[in-house]
C-alpha cells in the first residue's frame, strides 16, 4: 500500500536498497548507509539476513544501528566472533559471501569506487579514510551492491584514485585482475538505480525514484549517462517501510 506521507530522498534510497536484500543471504556490510539499509531489511522482509561486519562479527542482530563496525552491540548479538585474519582469509577470500554491500565517496561509469583521496595522491585536496575492507569485498563477494548519494561531484568521469574495482575499464578486466566475484549488480542512489550493461559493463539508469526527473539524474552524473529503453519508476515507500525506517534507533540515542 502506497503511503500518502511525505518522505525524504535519503529514506527512499535506504528503502530501495533494503528491497534488494533477501532472507538468508550472507551479506558483508559496510558502515553508514549500507548498514542502515541492511538493518532495515532485517526489520521488514528479511529477518534472517545474515549480516557480517569486518570486525569479525558473524550473524550480528543489533537492536540499534551501530556507529562503528566494531560496536559492542554487534559483538553481543553475533552468532560468532572471529579474528580479522579469519574474516578476510577464511570467509571473504574463498567466496563464501553472497553480497558485498558498499558505500564510497565517488564512483565512475564502470562502478569503480574511490574512498581514498580527492586530488593528487601525494598532495590531496581532501584526504578520505581509505580502503578498509572494501577492495577485497568488491573483489571476492559473489556480487556487490553499491549505495551512495548521486551528484556531479560523486558520479565522476575519471576517479582520482581507484580504491575498489567494479569493472575496471570494461569487460574482461575483472578476470584480468584475478577478481573472483561477479562484481557490482546494482548501484542505488537517492535519485534512482543504475545497473551495468551486460555487454559493455557501463552503468545504465534503469529506475528513477518517483518525483525525480530524468533531467535531474543526467545533471547529477559527471559522464554522459545512458538511460535504459524501458526506464522503470521505483515504487514509493509503503507506510510499513516508512514506519520501520523511522523506528531505527542509532547507537547512543
Amino acid at each position, binding site marked *: 500500500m502506497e503511503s500518502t506521507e511525505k518522505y525524504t530522498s535519503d529514506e527512499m534510497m535506504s528503502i530501495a536498497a533494503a528491497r534488494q536484500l533477501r532472507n538468508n543471504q550472507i551479506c558483508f556490510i559496510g558502515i553508514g548507509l549500507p548498514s542502515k539499509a541492511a538493518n532495515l531489511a532485517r526489520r521488514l522482509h528479511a529477518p534472517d539476513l545474515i549480516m557480517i561486519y569486518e570486525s569479525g562479527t558473524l550473524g550480528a542482530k543489533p537492536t540499534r544501528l551501530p556507529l562503528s563496525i566494531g560496536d559492542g552491540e554487534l559483538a553481543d548479538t553475533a552468532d560468532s566472533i572471529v579474528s580479522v585474519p579469519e574474516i578476510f582469509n577464511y570467509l571473504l577470500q574463498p567466496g563464501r559471501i553472497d553480497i558485498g554491500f558498499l558505500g564510497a565517496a565517488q564512483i565512475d561509469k564502470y562502478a569503480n569506487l574511490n574512498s581514498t583521496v580527492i586530488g593528487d595522491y601525494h*598532495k590531496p585536496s581532501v584526504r578520505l579514510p581509505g580502503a578498509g575492507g572494501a577492495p577485497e569485498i568488491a573483489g571476492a563477494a559473489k556480487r556487490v551492491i553499491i549505495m551512495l548519494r548521486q551528484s556531479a561531484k560523486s558520479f565522476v568521469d575519471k576517479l582520482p*584514485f581507484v580504491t575498489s574495482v567494479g569493472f575496471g575499464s570494461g569487460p574482461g*578486466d575483472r578476470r584480468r585482475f584475478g577478481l573472483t566475484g561477479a562484481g557490482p549488480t546494482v548501484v542505488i542512489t537517492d535519485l534512482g538505480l543504475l545497473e551495468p550493461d551486460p555487454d559493455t559493463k557501463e552503468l545504465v539508469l534503469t529506475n528513477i525514484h518517483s518525483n525525480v526527473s530524468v533531467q535531474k539524474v543526467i545533471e547529477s552524473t559527471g559522464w554522459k549517462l545512458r538511460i535504459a529503453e524501458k526506464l522503470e519508476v521505483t515504487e514509493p515507500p509503503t507506510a510499513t517501510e516508512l514506519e520501520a525506517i523511522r523506528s531505527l534507533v542509532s547507537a547512543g540515542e
Partner: protein
Amino acid sequence: MAEIVSLKEAIGSLLNDGDTVALEGFTHLIPMSAGHEIIKQRFQQLTLVRLTPDLISDQLIGMGCVNKLVFSWGGNPGVGSLHRLRDAVEHDWPCPLEIDEHSHAGLTNRFVAGASGLPFAVMRGYQGTGLDTYTSTVAPISCPFTGEELRAVAAINPDLSVIHAQRADRKGNVQLWGITGIQKEAVLAGKRSLVTVEEIVDELDRRPGDVILPSWLITAVAQSSGGSRPSYASGFYQRDNDFYIAWDGISRDRQTFMSWMNENVL
C-alpha cells in the same frame, strides 16, 4: 615470562625514538592509555602501525610523535574524518607524515606474515587498484603450482606491539574476549610486546571465545584500568560514542586540539 610493571616504566623501557610501534585493537580494546603515555614521554619520529588509526593515532600525529603511518582505514567511524591525520597529510602539520597505505586484508596479512616468521604473505587482491601502484610493500607473485598471479605483502615486525586486554593473572598470562581483531598476530609479530589490562587477578576464569596469550609470549604487562576509554572493554565499560562524535569538534581546529591535549593528556 612477562614482567608486570607500571605503564610509565613499560613505555619508557620498551620504546625508543624512531621505533616502529603497533597499537592494535579493532574498535574494541584500543590501547588509549598506552598511546597517551607515549605522548607524555615525548617520543618522536615513530612509525605508527594501526589498521584503523582511530582517535589515538589522531592524537599521536597531532602531537608530532609520528612521521610515518602504516594503516588501512583512517577515519572516525560513523562520524567522519580524523582531522589531525588529514591536517598532517594535507598541510604537513605539525610535521610531514609519510604514509604506507593498505586494505584491511593486506595489512592483516602483513601481521600474519610477521607473526609466522615469514618474509611475506600471499593473498588475492590489490590488482586494478591505486593501492597496487602507490604502496611499496605489495608486489606481484605467481603461484608456483597454477601460475595464478597473486599479491605478496611484506611482513611487518614492529619493534614494539601494544594491545589492551581485559585481564592478566599475576604470572602475566593475558586474557581477552569479544572482538579480538588482529591483536594476537600483532603481539606475535612484535619484537617486543606490551599488554595493558583492566585488572590483574589471581585466576583467569574462562569466557566463551576468549583468547589466552601465555606469559612467555609477552614482554611486559601493565595494569591500566579504563585504559581503552573512549573505546570499550567488553565486560567492563561501553564505547563512549558521544565522545567519538565530540572529537570531531575538538580535533578540527589546531588550537582547540592543543588545549584539549594539554588539559586532558599532558
